[in-house]
């Protein structure tokens, strides 16, 4: 009788007490959730995407609801890497959960500058790793460009790889013809892990005003609606790369997370669910425990890629 199955997983050299992380942009800078959950219970925290300089972001409305999903066009509003280090990371020092910084840049140079800076303070500020966002669909010049082309993906990842020893997680965009190709070049370029998916590009229109519902016209689709697309991409990438995969997309309950793990994910990220239920990540962790106990699986790692076809 297995009643305490092992939940520990290792991603890109980062040891996680369980495979459940929070997805960038849906968990703020962490502290926002401390009134609701014990942050020390999380597998890891991925913070709001950061850029070199502070970013204003897009005009409102920035979020609107769609069937079983939502569109967001935040436009990467963030405090910039320096304020992140000074204020936000300092707040998190008291916690024991690995902190992963999600970084975005308009140019390779910007990516490098951020990575360098975070690398410098990684010891003092306990930064566990970097998640490279080459896929944020809201920033015209940035993300999209890199993540939708295998060569540019290779280029940016490889450059960052050269200047930091920090574990690198490359976060892929689903808005591509062949996710396997992109994942492969990220691995080639030296990524330690791959996370997917970021949001699907989408749009909604208010037929009374004949205007887009988002001020930014289009935004990123997330939530349960995208789960089937995300699962299929995770399974495809699992066939392609050797490095661990972090599954993301519409995970609201433990059952969803388990689908991703069976499809090949070593860990998962909970995103939109945080906006609906701040306790979601904890509930997912508990649910996974119950599933393993019920199925008498002694180690979560055995579930990864266990899809029977």
């Amino acid at each position, binding site marked *: 009788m297995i009643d305490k199955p092992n939940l520990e997983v290792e991603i890109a050299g980062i040891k996680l007490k369980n495979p459940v992380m929070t997805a960038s*942009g*849906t*968990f*703020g800078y962490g*502290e*926002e*959730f*401390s*009134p*609701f959950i014990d942050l020390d219970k999380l597998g890891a925290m991925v913070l*709001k995407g950061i850029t070199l300089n502070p970013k*204003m*972001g897009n*005009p*409102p*409305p*920035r*979020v*609107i*609801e769609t*069937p*079983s*999903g*939502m569109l*967001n066009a*935040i436009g990467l*509003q963030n405090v910039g890497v320096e304020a992140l280090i000074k*204020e936000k990371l300092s707040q998190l020092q008291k916690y024991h959960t690995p902190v992963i910084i999600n970084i975005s840049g308009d140019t390779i140079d910007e990516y490098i500058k951020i990575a360098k800076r975070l690398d410098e303070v990684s010891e003092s500020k306990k930064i566990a790793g970097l998640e490279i966002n080459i896929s944020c669909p809201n920033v015209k010049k940035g993300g999209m460009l890199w993540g939708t082309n295998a060569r540019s993906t290779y280029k940016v990842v490889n450059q960052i790889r050269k200047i930091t020893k920090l574990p690198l997680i490359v976060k892929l965009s689903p808005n591509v013809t062949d996710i396997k190709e992109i994942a492969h070049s990220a691995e080639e370029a030296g990524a330690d892990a791959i996370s997917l998916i970021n949001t699907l590009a989408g749009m909604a229109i208010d037929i009374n005003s004949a205007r887009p519902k988002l001020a930014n016209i289009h935004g990123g689709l997330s*939530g*349960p609606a995208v789960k089937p697309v995300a699962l299929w991409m995770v399974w495809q990438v699992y066939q392609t790369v050797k490095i661990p995969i972090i599954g993301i997309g519409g995970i*609201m309950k433990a059952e969803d997370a388990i689908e991703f793990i069976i499809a090949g994910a070593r860990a998962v990220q909970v995103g*939109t669910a*945080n*906006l*609906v*239920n*701040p*306790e979601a990540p904890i509930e997912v962790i508990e649910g996974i425990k119950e599933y393993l106990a019920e199925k008498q699986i002694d180690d979560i790692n055995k579930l990864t890629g266990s899809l029977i076809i």
Partner: protein
Amino acid sequence: MANKRKKVRLVLKTKVKIFFKEKIVSDPDIYLMGLSASLIANEAKPGQFIHIKCSKDNYPLLRRPLSIHRIDKEKGEIYILFQVVGEGTKLLAQKEVGDNLDVLGPIGNGFNIYPESKKIMIVGGGIGVAPLLALCEGSIRQEKEVRVLIGALKKELVIEEENFRNLGAKVDVATDDGSYQYKGLVTDLLERVIKEGWLADQIFACGPKPMLKKINEIALKANIDYQVSLEERMGCGIGACLGCVCKIKTKGKKEEKVKYEYKRVCVDGPIFEGSEVVWDD
């Protein structure tokens, strides 16, 4: 920062029971709902809101923000007053007395009534009166002299008039079609009251954006301190997603190109100084 962290720490996720429900206006349908929520009532201050999961499933997915309409700390009860405009409020209106609601709250900064203020002017347009009853009660408890101006399209849509009066406020109403009391916009009524010489120390308002904007001009001219309750589409409601922002002037940062920044309505607001809001959109 400290201030903000404090606010955040007070927010709770709880199940609250509906003990009262009444449809007070039809088409548009407006409901008054009473919630047994001692924890929230205990923490709540006028101008704050609660973030409600209206469905059990993904449809709708996100929570819906509703202002706290009345706070009864003794009884441990709060009230919400809401208009049915879409799927979420429709589902909420279908809930019955005895049902539980999954809510986050109280959220937001709330109105700031200055101790030194003697005269308070409260202006509500349409469903905008929702957060103002609690404010009125709070002001009167602090022995302020309170006047309330309610704006509505027509007589049938004037809500809560008596309740404001019962609290001890002087209430005047403006209807667009003149079917009740003053004929015209509530902002015209406000200008008239000021012209008549009743000068408040603070104006508080909630309602349609054009109304709020117009009042800002009036308050500026009369040089009266002015606080507004803003609305924006929301995601998390707890300051994490940056989905609910509004344009707020960045004071004293002359060097910067942009003269405004995006602040979160949910936790930096929903109450802002009228003078700091960028009204141009």
